[in-house]
């Protein structure tokens, strides 16, 4: 029971640190900030607990802390990167809560596509030339590593969820 509580307090500390850190400028990516904060608050929490508590089991504390951290990262990733959720929030803001398919593509999906191009250029994986965009040596290397992982996982990536989802629903 004490160990569960220690894990919960480590998680609470992680939430506090992350929410502040995500608002501060810096070069470190948001996901890396989550990871560093999770690890630091876990270790610090355990060290403090050693001084305050006589004896406790590690795994219950680790389980509660890890589950909280993963849920937090999952929620952050969903609202940070998910195109579907982004479209949903745009629908919520639109008059009548509805948008034409063409509008969604032109005003939300196309800009999102261009934003991801900027990310790839910023990461040094793609470069803009007078003829258009090309994969850099770093990009080619990353692509071949991704393909290797996909091969191990038996995935023929299309980037689309699937034909059964892609069909438009009837009116």
């Amino acid at each position, binding site marked *: 029971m004490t*160990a*569960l509580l220690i894990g919960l307090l480590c998680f609470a500390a992680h939430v506090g640190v992350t*929410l502040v850190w995500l*608002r501060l400028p810096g070069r470190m990516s948001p996901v890396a900030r989550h990871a560093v904060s999770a690890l630091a608050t876990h270790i610090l929490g355990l060290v403090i607990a050693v001084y305050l508590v006589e004896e*406790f089991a*590690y*795994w219950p504390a*680790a*389980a509660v802390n*890890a*589950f909280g951290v*993963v*849920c937090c*990262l*999952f929620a*952050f*990733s*969903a*609202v940070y990167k998910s*195109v*579907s*959720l982004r*479209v*949903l929030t745009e*629908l*919520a803001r639109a008059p*009548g*809560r*509805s*948008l*034409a*398919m*063409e509008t*969604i*593509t032109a005003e939300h*999906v*196309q800009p999102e*596509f261009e934003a*991801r191009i900027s990310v*790839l250029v910023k990461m040094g994986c*793609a470069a803009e*030339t007078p*003829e*258009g*965009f090309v994969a850099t040596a770093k*990009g080619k290397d*990353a692509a*071949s590593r991704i393909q290797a*992982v996909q091969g191990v*996982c*038996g995935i023929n*990536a299309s*980037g*689309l*969820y*699937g034909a059964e*989802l*892609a069909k438009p*629903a009837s*009116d």
Partner: protein
Amino acid sequence: MPIDFVPSLPVSLSLGACVFLPASLLALSHRPLKVISPARRFVMAAALTWLAWFAAMIAAAPDWVEAVTSGLLLATATLAGFTLWTLIAWGFTLTMLLALNRAGRSLSVEEWALAYTRGKPLDAFTRDRLGVLLKLGLAEIRGGEVTMTPNCGRAFARVAVLLRKLFGLPI
């Protein structure tokens, strides 16, 4: 030692289940057990793992702290595995890089989008991502327009906006 790092039997079994999840996922990714759909593959691997874990827990008869610890450990592994799996199978930026690399030449933004969707208009990508919203009942298509559903859709959109505010992301 004030911290007991030795896992109990139920916790050890859960850690084993955490390893079993990616192992079963890999087994289902290749012949003879291959499940074609990556989404169904993950669901099957997770279901198999949780069934095996449940059987192991009945045999190990843990107390409530061990049961909570064990369940949280496997839930953490499942959620983390799901996040990684979706990234490998459907990652937007990642698939864009693969498409650029596959093209082997410079691409304009429009050509890159076509390479991403394998020759379909960007609308196909919009429909694909919207398919998730439609399937989950968060949006529907009415008279050619995409409309947010009044209950589920609105609730989800509110949560998404709240989370964006909480994480300090622009609305």
